[in-house]
């Protein structure tokens, strides 16, 4: 196994049962991602981007082939092991932010750390650092409902980044944001990628995002049709 690769897929196939038969959402994906990449999966709607990210994020398992994340083969992990992998090493950013509405900004960002047995003071420092990265130190006591869409997504980035994960998976992170906010959060993520050497994999069809990518993988009908360094 190649240790410089954080994600490896080999002949990855994903079928979804529909009706009596199967729908093939991913059809033989062979990809490798190295530590510190800032890469994106692009392609038309329905091409399999989210499906690929879910498997890489150990939220779903392959029908055939392999997906190895940090030396662990997703298809062979138990629920518990998959949860452990996500807890320790992965961060997620969603199109719809998915902040917990009853908690403050601080608490939302703190949440992933509660699973990691950190001391209160270490947690506090980590949360404040993460909010500093996204520029939201002045809003720690606000509730998500009181924030703008851009601010919400920045909280979500802080939540994904607070435990300094090895890999961040971002599915259409700018779909609900205007141009200015999109650039702002992309610059934030670009900076975190540089400073912390975190690997980012995006799924997107937003040109604004694509401009920032250092590697662009194009999917069509579940197959990789292009993989280019930009």
């Amino acid at each position, binding site marked *: 196994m190649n240790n410089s690769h954080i994600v490896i897929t080999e002949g990855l196939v994903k079928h979804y049962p529909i009706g009596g038969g199967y729908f093939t959402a991913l059809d033989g994906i062979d990809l490798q991602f190295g530590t510190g990449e800032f890469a994106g999966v692009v392609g038309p709607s329905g091409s399999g981007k989210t499906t690929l990210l879910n498997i890489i994020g150990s939220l779903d398992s392959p029908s055939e082939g392999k997906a190895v994340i940090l030396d662990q083969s997703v298809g062979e992990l138990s629920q518990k092991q998959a949860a*452990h992998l996500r807890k320790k090493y992965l961060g997620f950013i969603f199109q719809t932010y*998915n902040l917990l509405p009853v*908690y403050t900004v601080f608490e939302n960002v703190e949440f992933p750390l509660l699973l990691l047995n950190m001391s209160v003071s270490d947690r506090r420092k980590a949360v404040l650092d993460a909010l500093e990265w996204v520029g939201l130190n002045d809003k720690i006591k606000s509730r998500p409902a009181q924030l703008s869409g851009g601010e919400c997504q920045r909280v979500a980035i802080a939540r994904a980044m607070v435990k300094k994960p090895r890999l961040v998976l971002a599915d259409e992170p700018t779909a609900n944001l205007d141009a200015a906010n999109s650039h702002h959060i992309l610059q934030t993520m670009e900076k975190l990628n540089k400073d912390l050497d975190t690997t980012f994999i995006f799924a997107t069809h937003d040109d604004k995002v694509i401009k920032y990518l250092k590697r662009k993988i194009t999917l069509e009908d579940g197959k990789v049709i292009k993989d280019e360094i930009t």
Partner: protein
Amino acid sequence: MIRFLFKGLLRDRQRSLLPSIVVAAGVMLTVFLVCYLTGIMGGFADFTSKFSSGHVKIMTRAYADNMNQKPIDLALTDVSEIIEKVRQDHPDMDWVLRTQFGGLLDVPDENGETRSQGPSMAIAIDMLTPGSKEPGRLTLDNILVKGSIPDSPGEILISDEFATKLEVVPGDAVTLMGSTMYGSMSFYNFTISGTIRFGVSVMDRGAIIVDFSDAQAALDMQDASGEILGYLPSGNYNGEEAGVVCASFNSKYTDPEDEFSPVMLKLSEQDEFLGGYLEMIDAVALIVVFVFILAMSIVLWNTGLIGGLRRYGEVGVRLAVGEGKGHIYKSMIYESAMIGIIGSALGTIIGLLFAYWVQEKGIDISSIMKGATMMMPGKFHAKIVPEAYYLGFIPGLFSTTLGTMLSGIGIYKRKTAQLFKELET
């Protein structure tokens, strides 16, 4: 983590306040209903035992077979001997002589002609012996409407309603016409000392209370009595205790060959209807609890107040940050148990307060009971029983956790990725 979840629970009213209220309401009703039903049954038993059945009753076997007709020709004889024996066997119980008999109450005018008359049921109790507990047991002081309690032989109390019908007042003379124990006609003159209100329509229609020695004289019952009633030391009816007393008495004194040998029956054996109901009390409590568990579980489950669809988003996020499914499921059950406990405590307190109020005040049903022939008090009182303190927690806790378990199965049934997808919509 627990503190974090608890904080969220408190802040999310839909998850805490609403379910707590649903639970509290259900628990309140459970607690109240249990107290109320126990109170009603207890009220029946209490009233019947005081006026008619005792906790246990000794009769001749022949009398027992025709108990409803109060056949005084089948009365117990040598009662002083029997009562002596039972007082020895059960010194802490109270044993009293009672005779009930029917007759015609005749009101004469100044010429001795009948002015008015009506059929009457007489209860003979010991009113005159100093220290007799009988006047207190029947709370004569409380039910007295006009006049006074008899203090010398030949005086009787008469139902106030009956007195109005016969147009008599305290001080008037009446004649009770009946038959003696040996079947000959009997006429006995009494003076009305007071009128009373029983609060039970069967008795208010035509009952009188006479002193026991007057009855013995009127009915020619030397050392005889229709019945001997026994009251348990606690003053409250207890089927098991009464059963033990009966069994020991019957094995000792009953002769299956002799119709006139004494037999002892407990309250529930004397009145099938009441007996059946008394036995149902416990079952009723169980049924109430069970019905509420079911109803509340369904309500909580269906509205998805706890768990449910509303929280798939939260579940998705928690899965994404690496919380295990089992952990999430368990934490939701803890949450709902917490709500169950809080709601149950609240509901129990309110239910008990409400039950206490009905215990003290009573609900007046005498107007509904006007035509009833059953011996039933005109006022229902709830009774706070020890079970009421914890019984409500059973449906309260069960329904919340059951509701969550049911709605939470959704988490398990759904594939992780699928749950996650709910986030995107």
